[in-house]
């Protein structure tokens, strides 16, 4: 049961079995680097690249809610951004495809111990650009029940969404979140249950951004994205592992209203 939860997220990346080039040595010295890299990158070329910024706090103050920002705006032609923590029981947190969006994403993840947290950024030429850092964390981020399970009110608020958009330089910064327990399946008697797919579409129905989400994203998952086009409204749609769908609409003026209301 637990093993399958650990392995399943990585099967998604097993595209070709061939192993082309030897892995470059891990600057973080992670004991799990070879294991994860061989499964996530599966023979593709990869380089460690400081132009990929992985912003971590100086302390994982709450191991259930650790903010991580990935900023790859210094790179051109970004196809995917995979955020993963080597020593998490569910290593991959998100697999983001910024179709018509900046290669920038912020979210919060759970950590189960001191671990490297990395972003792998796939460019159009098929090369992965990888960066990250170690962060210390107490245990239990993935193996303690979420707060809403303990309070008992998770179902009362399931799928409630909050968010706003801020128009900036012809694009729109979107910040939004969902009420969702994001159960990892690692807590006794609570099966895995998480939001797993997310898409942002514009007023014409064009998909601007897509994301696959795993159970290591924090309870009440929250995201910051920067999509192209400043004409609202933007639609945020998500589906969880039980097939429930959540949808919200963010007006282009919503952020400006918040600023004005201050």
């Amino acid at each position, binding site marked *: 049961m637990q093993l399958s939860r650990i392995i399943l997220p990585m099967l998604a990346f097993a595209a070709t079995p061939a192993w082309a080039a030897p892995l470059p040595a891990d600057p973080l010295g992670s004991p799990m680097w070879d294991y994860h890299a061989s499964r996530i990158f599966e023979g593709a070329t990869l380089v460690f690249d400081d132009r990929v910024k992985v912003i971590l706090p100086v302390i994982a103050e709450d191991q259930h809610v650790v903010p991580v920002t990935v900023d790859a705006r210094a790179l051109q032609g970004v196809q995917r951004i995979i955020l993963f923590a080597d020593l998490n029981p569910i290593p991959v947190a998100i697999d983001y495809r910024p179709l018509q969006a900046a290669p920038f994403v912020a979210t919060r993840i759970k950590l189960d111990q001191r671990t490297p947290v990395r972003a792998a950024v796939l460019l159009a030429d098929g090369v992965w650009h990888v960066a990250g850092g170690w962060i210390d964390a107490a245990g239990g981020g993935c193996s303690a029940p979420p707060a809403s399970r303990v309070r008992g009110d998770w179902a009362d608020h399931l799928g409630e969404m909050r968010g*706003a958009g801020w128009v900036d330089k012809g694009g729109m910064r979107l910040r939004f979140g969902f009420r969702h327990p994001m159960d990892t399946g690692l807590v006794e008697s609570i099966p895995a249950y998480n939001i797993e797919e997310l898409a942002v579409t514009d007023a014409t129905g064009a998909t601007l951004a897509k994301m696959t989400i795993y159970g290591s994203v924090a309870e009440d998952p929250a995201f910051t994205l920067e999509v192209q086009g400043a004409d609202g409204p933007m639609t945020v749609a998500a589906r969880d592992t039980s097939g429930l769908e959540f949808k919200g609409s963010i007006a282009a003026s919503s952020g400006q209203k918040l600023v004005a209301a201050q």
Partner: protein
Amino acid sequence: MNLNRRSVLTAALAGGVLVSKVGRTEAFARGYDPQAEAIADGVWLVRGKDEPIAFDNGGAIANSVFIATDAGTVLIDPGPSLAYGKALSALAQRVTGAAVARVYITHLHPDHSFGAAAFDPAIAHALPATRHDLVNDGDGFSDALYRMLADWMSGTAVVLPQGDAAEGNVTFGGRTLRLFAMNGHSNGDLAILDQKTGTLIAGDLLFHDRAPATPHADIDGWLAALDRIEGISHRLLIPGHGPLDRNGTSIAQTRDWLTWLRASLRNAVPTGKDMSEAGAMTIPDRFAGLKVARYELQRSVSHFYPGLEAELLPEIGR
């Protein structure tokens, strides 16, 4: 309960380790060596390090105070561990000439409270709110401190103070202490005024030349407590962290930081900043003298940001 225990592993500490040390067991070959400084007639201050809790300092980051009385020494805040409590006990005997006869714990945080393990729980006093929160959070604190401090914590069990501290005057061994039951830094913040010398021991309601920590803080309540402290006639202020304060600087600093923090976080959410960006915001130059300012700002972002988003971002959908 399980969640409660886990969720406070790091969240509730007044400090934390920035970077894990390798080879901790080899590094541990020391004991604590607290030093007492006489600051008023029959009053001694034992300074903690103005740092986060870390293996290198054994968690000894909070200030402790001795007050000599005819019935023995009153110890305020026995520190983070059994070994530190024992070191304070020996130090008190040496400088005051009398054993510790009463312990006050200003609030629940383990850098102040866990040294109670070195004393009879019957002589340890705290506000009922503090005991209540130690019942809930003590095991989680213990897990966190053992993780960070390892052998420094050897033998330290969570000790619940048995005595109830309450607002009002207490005369112990001929010395009158005025107790103030407040809150804001935590649910129960005990401040103690030594009437004889006008020394006000404020616990973590005051930070001095060190950024305030907010894991259980209610900022509005804390600011109200600062107003109250300002109105208490005193000669000396002893903050929970940082040096002795002879002129009220720590009140102004703590109020300034908390007011700035509250306004800055409430501004960050409506202007679209994510948590990392809020944690990276410019800290005004006037706080340049506060130690661990960036560290405490990022901790405070963790404590408050999700709640502020739930309050300030509009509902979408449905």
